[in-house]
């Protein structure tokens, strides 16, 4: 019987940041043999060389179609099967699908040994999603601030208002129209970009 930490785990992900987060999570949990690869045209050869017991791959990754065919025809590697084979574990399947994780596991590995690995991948995918959402929100906030700054600049130059008065004008219009300040700022910018 292979010991837990001796499983060869392969993470395939086009997103190197997410792959790194998943890899670190697994290594920190005591799995020493974790490899990761991005998209590659010699996927088949690389997987054969790594001989993984478990493959973790983004559910949406187009390489899954390639992988599944390879598992079907290859004689060179043990044939992994989709993680979802354990149909009794409906809650984990739902969690995996909603997190966007899919896994292929060499037939015969015990489900209770696989479960913590897949759960780790699910939680790391969720963490990554959370980080990405926060980053996108921060980026959006920054963009909003930039729009407001530009609109203020336009009003100061074109209307001779002070900075405070420009901002107050944007805010007043936003409240009146029940819109966000940055939306009003966008309208101001658009209006002054028109050519007369």
């Amino acid at each position, binding site marked *: 019987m292979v010991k837990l930490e001796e499983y060869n785990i392969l993470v395939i992900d086009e997103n190197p940041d997410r792959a790194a987060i998943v890899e670190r999570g697994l290594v920190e949990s005591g799995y020493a043999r974790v490899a990761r690869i991005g998209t590659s*045209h010699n996927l*088949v050869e690389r997987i054969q060389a790594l001989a993984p017991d478990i493959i973790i791959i983004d*559910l*949406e*990754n*187009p*390489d*899954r*179609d*390639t*992988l*599944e*065919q*390879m*598992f*079907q*025809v290859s004689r060179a590697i043990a*044939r*992994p*099967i*989709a993680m*979802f*084979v354990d*149909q009794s574990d409906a809650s984990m*399947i*739902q969690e995996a*699908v*909603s997190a966007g994780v*899919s896994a*292929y596991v060499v*037939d015969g590995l015990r489900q209770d040994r696989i479960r913590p690995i897949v759960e780790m991948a699910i939680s790391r995918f969720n963490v990554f999603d959370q980080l990405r959402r926060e980053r996108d929100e921060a980026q959006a906030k920054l963009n909003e601030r930039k729009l407001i700054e530009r609109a203020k600049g336009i009003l100061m130059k074109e209307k001779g208002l002070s900075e405070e008065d420009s901002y107050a004008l944007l805010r007043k219009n936003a409240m009146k129209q029940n819109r966000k300040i940055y939306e009003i700022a966008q309208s101001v910018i658009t209006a002054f970009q028109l050519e007369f």
Partner: protein
Amino acid sequence: MAEKVRLGFVPLVDCAIPVVARAMGFAEQENIDLELVREMSWAAIRDKLSYGVFEAAHLLAGIPIAARLGLGGVPVQHIVVPMALGRGGNAITVSTRLYQRMLEADPAAMHGPRGLSGRALKKVIDEDRAAGRPVMSFATVFPFSSHNYELRYWMAAAGIDPDRDVNIGVIAPPRMFDSLRNGWVDGYCVGEPWNQRAVFHGDGVIVALKDDIWPRSPEKVLGIREDWVNSSPETVSGLVRALVRAAEWADQPGNRSELAQMLSEESNVGAPYEILKASLGGRPVLRPGEAPTDIPDRHVFYRYTATFPWLSQGSWVGTQMKRWGQVPADSDLNSVVRQVYRPDLYRAAVADLDVAVPKHDWRVEGANDADDRSFVGPDSFLDNTVFDPEKVS
């Protein structure tokens, strides 16, 4: 309150039917709020349908059969097929370099019927073998795809053994074109616009069209979970009606420009308008820099019973699964096809519409004297085979 239906699709010309059903209001008329979700792989669509993320999906005809059998290391899934989504627009494209070699090796075959162009490939393979060169690589989109079966049919008809004389791998449709351009594969069989795109960019030549191999080979189908049929029969009927109406609209020559425009949007197929227009208008360009060729039946969405889920077409998929060793030769696939393909659902859904339905669910395929030919369209196999589904198990 409209019923919400989430439908997953892959960016290909034959996602036209669901796209039109939403855009032109056919789904709304059936009180269905149709949400379309673009997916980049067949495995992802299959899993999301199976585990309830989608109610419906644009699927390869072989996937529901493979899912019922639990093939490919994936657990058994009960997906059924209430209708087909047109006849597709597959083609076999080879790299311009391979095309030149085929032309030199056997000019007669390359100027004869396109279905037999594989004979020139056979000569190239023989040359390579004599010179001790490695075998060439071809790609299709999924193990249980009509593309895989069509490519193999075309090769085998020319005396090529697809399992020995070439490598056949799988690449998801949106990645095909780059794989050819980068020289990772020498040729492929895929749906449009991924053939036309290679020709427009000068990287590939179309050597055979689906019509040259077997015009009636089953292509995409509507896949839904069996439990959803049982729990929401009215919605299933409404969805089928909306999609059949959409297919009728998409088939009108006068609507093809608008359809090309719709499909060119990034949220749908996301390919250039002129490439989609050439293909949808029935005037594809087969070789880079040449004039378009008139192929009016290049994309058929509605006529020729293109939305009817023929059991005989499902049965043919089964014979190809056996032929290429995907299932044991003694499997009783016709009884699986009967569970998966559900013409009864189609008939019930369109009963009150002015839609011509066939008398029978099965027919002998490829018989040139068939009296229903004007109804079902041309159906000759490139090797003039006659396929009688009752003579297989």
